[in-house]
């Protein structure tokens, strides 16, 4: 039984690490702000969920698991909110374009 849980948790952790890395790569390589936001949110949701669930499986039924669940819950609430606020701010200032973005690929809508 413990072996199964171990294997499962390793799978989750590896998957989480992979998603985190891919999201980071996307945030670096995507051409403009909104697509970058898309990539970054991947790490905040999929990556975070997998990593935290992986650790939770390792922790078993302890106080740590409850704390991890709380962290997960709050992350899932706050990080999309932050993305939303960020997009609002970008659109809001897009009305009056500020800070001339000369580099190609940095054009915000």
């Amino acid at each position, binding site marked *: 039984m413990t072996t199964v849980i171990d294997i499962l948790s390793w799978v989750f952790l590896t998957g989480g690490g*992979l998603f985190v890395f891919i999201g980071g790569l996307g945030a670096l390589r995507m051409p403009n702000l909104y697509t970058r936001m898309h990539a970054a949110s991947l790490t905040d949701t999929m990556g975070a969920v997998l990593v935290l669930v992986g650790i939770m499986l390792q922790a078993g039924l302890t106080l740590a698991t409850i704390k991890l669940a709380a962290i997960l819950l709050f992350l899932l609430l706050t990080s999309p909110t932050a993305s939303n606020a*960020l997009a609002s701010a970008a659109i809001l200032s897009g009305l009056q374009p500020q800070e001339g973005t000369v580099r190609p690929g940095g054009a915000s809508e």
Partner: protein
Amino acid sequence: MYYAVTIATLITMGLALVRALLGPSIYDRLLAANMFGTKTVLFLSVVAFLYGRPDFLDLALVYALINFIGVIAVLEFIRERVDNNGAKKNTGEQNS
């Protein structure tokens, strides 16, 4: 195995930092900072287990709870700037 996740998180932190340095717009930097915040949450959680002291998850919890206040503050800052006619350097002379 925790090491693999830690390394992935650290590398992603590095990537986010590169994005924050490259910009080009202020929002890209902000996006990177926010992403950096969630990566720090993951990093702290994993390292707490790596150290065998899971009671230190409080730290990650703090970041999970209040890290987005910074983004909200920037939204408010920009909203105010847009309200004040959106002039780029608008805030100097309103107290005359």
